[in-house]
């Protein structure tokens, strides 16, 4: 891999010097024959020859070179039967729209059968990336320069190193300059130069650590000591970051549990209904998200936002249907509600299987939710989970407000405390039941919307969460939102703390056993609450 890479960089270097020179003159365009010939060279069996061909393309300072390489990288540079090269614009389906690689004019659709890809492998892919990176060092666009600088960390070789000094001095973007300096320092450190070690002090980038390790084992004692001390301080710093990371993992897992369970906390806590179909309500929320994305192709973000109310609505409506259709007949028979709603869950699952598909559905993650928030080179927090965490808290606060501030909340609490009394005071308990159940179900729908960003959207989605949800609710204390929040988050954190040394399976088992034993000690959970449900 490295062998390929360095050769790539070396020839890229020649090119870059050329480009550097041309910065004033502007680059030329090779004649179509030459261009055709250049591409012809790519269409060979051995990857070694392909490497050579790429070098050739780089050296021919053709302004289309970068586009060709990019197309090659994306596997969209293909050849027709009559041997002309085209770039595939969109490769979904059996017929693809293409454009001429040389003239860039669109040629309409072509059948897959008539096209041959110019294949590449990861090695070439790396060569191409680094080559494009070096080209991009000279790009007028800052973000391209950033990326390429990023990529050069630990990939610098002698020739490039010589070049970097000038680049750094010319570079006006601070970030790029820092990266380039680091890249250079790593190169120096690897070659056992003290100044490199100095610059790398406190840098958390893994490549820096690797370089320092090398230097620490190097033969020059002074450099070695410097490297060792640098490493020591870095290790300290890393430990801290790991701790933060694990905590974050725990909280995000916890937030998922809270989301999944909190709707249950309401239906279970207030109405004493054990809704086994809760998981399927979550699933419906997730499918709503998918639906929305189908309706609004190309705008996953907007679709996601819209599916928050939509998901709530869908789930809430189904919830009402369940309440009216089944649960109202089972007043005061919690265990029977368990059985009936379990039946409902089976039906809903199979419904999705037959109506939509037994296969999982693709839910796209919008730009602003993908990737991670980079705190430093060692710690970065994944965005989608951060959003979910925030969302969970938002839902929780929302529910709290509903329970504390609104008329409904008041009535709900009244009914929970003493149904008969509440009735006597003219609260329409049945109406409260319906609304409560709708609320609980709706929240489940919201959970589904969030989960669609983390896991499969498929018929079994619900099943994977129902038991955990019950555990969280019971552990936290039935009908107590705070309990659910605390229970969910703490279980999440416990789980993530255990996982590294116990392994995922054992961690889960330990948590379950812990909950069982805990219930023995405190049969009413963390925050017990008197009320109908509490009588079980």
């Amino acid at each position, binding site marked *: 891999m490295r062998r390929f890479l360095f050769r790539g960089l070396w020839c890229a270097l020649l090119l870059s010097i050329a480009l550097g020179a041309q910065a004033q003159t502007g680059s030329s365009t090779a004649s179509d024959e030459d261009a055709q010939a250049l591409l012809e060279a790519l269409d060979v069996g051995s990857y070694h020859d392909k490497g050579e061909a790429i070098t050739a393309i780089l050296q021919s300072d053709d302004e289309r070179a970068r586009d060709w390489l990019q197309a090659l990288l994306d*596997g969209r540079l293909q050849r027709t039967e009559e041997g002309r090269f085209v770039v595939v614009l969109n490769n979904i389906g059996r017929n693809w729209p293409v454009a001429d690689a040389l003239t860039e004019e669109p040629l309409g659709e072509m059948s897959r059968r008539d096209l041959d890809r110019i294949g590449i*492998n990861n090695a070439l892919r790396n060569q191409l990336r680094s080559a494009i990176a070096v080209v991009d060092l000279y790009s007028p666009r800052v973000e391209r320069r950033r990326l390429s600088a990023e990529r050069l960390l630990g990939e610098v070789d002698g020739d490039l190193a010589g070049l970097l000094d000038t680049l750094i001095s010319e570079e006006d973007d601070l970030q790029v300059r820092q990266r380039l300096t680091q890249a250079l320092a790593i190169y120096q450190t690897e070659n056992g130069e003290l100044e490199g070690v100095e610059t790398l002090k406190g840098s958390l980038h893994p490549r820096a650590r690797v370089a320092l390790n090398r230097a620490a084992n190097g033969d020059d004692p002074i450099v070695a000591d410097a490297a060792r001390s640098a490493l020591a301080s870095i290790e300290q710093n890393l430990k801290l970051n790991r701790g933060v990371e694990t905590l974050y993992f725990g909280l995000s897992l916890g937030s998922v549990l809270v989301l999944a369970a909190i709707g249950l906390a309401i239906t279970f806590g207030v109405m004493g209904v054990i809704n086994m179909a809760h998981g399927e309500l979550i699933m419906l929320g997730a499918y709503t998200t998918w639906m929305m994305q189908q309706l609004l192709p190309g705008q996953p973000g907007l679709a996601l936002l819209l599916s928050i109310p939509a998901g709530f609505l869908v789930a809430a409506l189904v919830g009402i249907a369940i309440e009216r259709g089944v649960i109202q007949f089972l007043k005061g028979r919690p265990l029977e509600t368990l059985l009936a709603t379990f039946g409902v869950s089976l039906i809903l699952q199979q419904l999705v299987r037959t109506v939509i598909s037994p296969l999982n559905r693709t839910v796209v993650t919008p730009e602003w939710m993908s990737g991670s928030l980079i705190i430093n080179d060692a710690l970065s927090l994944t965005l989608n989970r951060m959003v979910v965490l925030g969302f969970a808290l938002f839902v929780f606060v929302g529910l709290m407000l509903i329970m504390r501030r609104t008329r409904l909340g008041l009535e709900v609490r009244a009914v929970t405390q003493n149904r008969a009394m509440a009735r006597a005071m003219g609260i329409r308990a049945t109406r409260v039941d319906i609304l409560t159940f709708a609320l609980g179900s709706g929240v489940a729908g919201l959970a589904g919307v969030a989960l669609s960003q983390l896991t499969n959207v498929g018929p079994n989605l619900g099943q994977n969460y129902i038991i955990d949800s019950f555990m969280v609710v019971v552990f936290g204390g039935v009908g107590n939102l705070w309990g659910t929040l605390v229970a969910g988050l703490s279980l999440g954190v416990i789980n993530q703390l255990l996982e590294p040394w116990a392994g995922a399976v054992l961690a889960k088992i330990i948590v379950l056993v812990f909950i069982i034993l805990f219930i023995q000690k405190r049969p009413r959970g963390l925050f017990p609450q008197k009320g109908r449900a509490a009588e079980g």
Partner: protein
Amino acid sequence: MTTIDLTAKPRARRFATTLLASALAAASLHAVAQENDPIKVGILHSLSGTMAISESTLKDTVEMLIAQQNEAGGLLGRQLEAVVVDPASNWPLFAERARELLAQEEVDVVFGNWTSVSRKAVLPVFEELNGLLFYPVQYEGEESSENVFYTGAAPNQQAIPAVDYLINEVGIERFALIGTDYVYPRTTNRILEAYLQDEYGVAEEDIMVNYTPFGHSDWQNIVSEIRRFGEEGKPTAVVSTINGDANVPFYRELANQGIDAADIPVIAFSVGEQELSGIDTGPLVGHLAAWNYFMSVDTDANYDFIDAWIEHTGDEEAVTNDPMEAHYIGFNMWAEAVRKAGTTDVDAVKDAIIGVTVPNLSGGYAAMMPNHHITKPVLIGEVQDNGQFDIVWQTPSTVAGDAWSDFLPGSRDLIADWRAPMRCGNFNVANGSCGGSTAAEEAEAALAE
């Protein structure tokens, strides 16, 4: 009808009974099968429950193949008739259904099963009632039954070439073996560990192994572990034997923690076109999969197959995958063997099918080996943004399936050969008996304490 290898001491008794049973079964089959009534083809794939996702398409595949065969005039002048049952992703039910197919419906051949456990569940039934089972999914090996034909990949037809590719073509030096905790990943990873250390001298600390439960959905910790594992400077790859539903959250987590194929490529053995259809492949581009067939294979045979499939399902988006090709091959092999034998009688077909060669969809040929495994090419594909794989490497010639891995102490010196006179699924070349592994010394070890 056959001679029993006299060296086979421990199994001889059971062996005789099996043959007896098979003779009886065969006789009874003849009793009911008149010349003109249709040949019954049993299909044993889950149509409901968790496995329905993967298996229902295989049922459709076999139905399609049967339809095509009938259009082409059937077999031996008789029409083929599909007998479909639903084991509902429930392992005991698999055994029950298998028994139904063989004892009740008296089918001539069965195509079915996906998971190893379901195969293990039906195995005794097929051996007892002497049926024929074609098993189309890649599996952990370590098995060769007289009544089962393994048209999926054995570890040496998938895992081993895959790491060869990683080491020789990509220059990988560290391996994270990540899998779901069941027998296929366990065995595969043990084979790979042994292989990497023996063949390439990869060091202990350069191999990381991790198992997760089915449908595992929280990959944060493991992925960040992988990230650190890969940050040590050596080029690193993940070898994934993660099963089904757990894949989506896994790849999502990879993407979100910023691990892309160029830094740490993931090569998967259980992720095919169908699985990808449920994932947003954008962030996955460049990750790898090792199979014996990809939908993107550029041959006319394949394009015809795809067109037929799309027509059969009436779904423009319908995808094909490796197990479907396995059934395609298996079905044709069986048909060929029936023609050769001139009858659907199980024992006759069992003898006839060994050595049968039929074209596969990737432009080569598949032959049935004496150990009831077949020859397959091994392809490495890279995920593309359109949910297809782009084939970046392939074995120069086809590889013969190995029932018993050379890299597991227990099975190193076992071979399977179902031709007369050996007729043995676990012949021990060391002590020349048909009685499994080097039992003697291991027995001492076990009894010692």
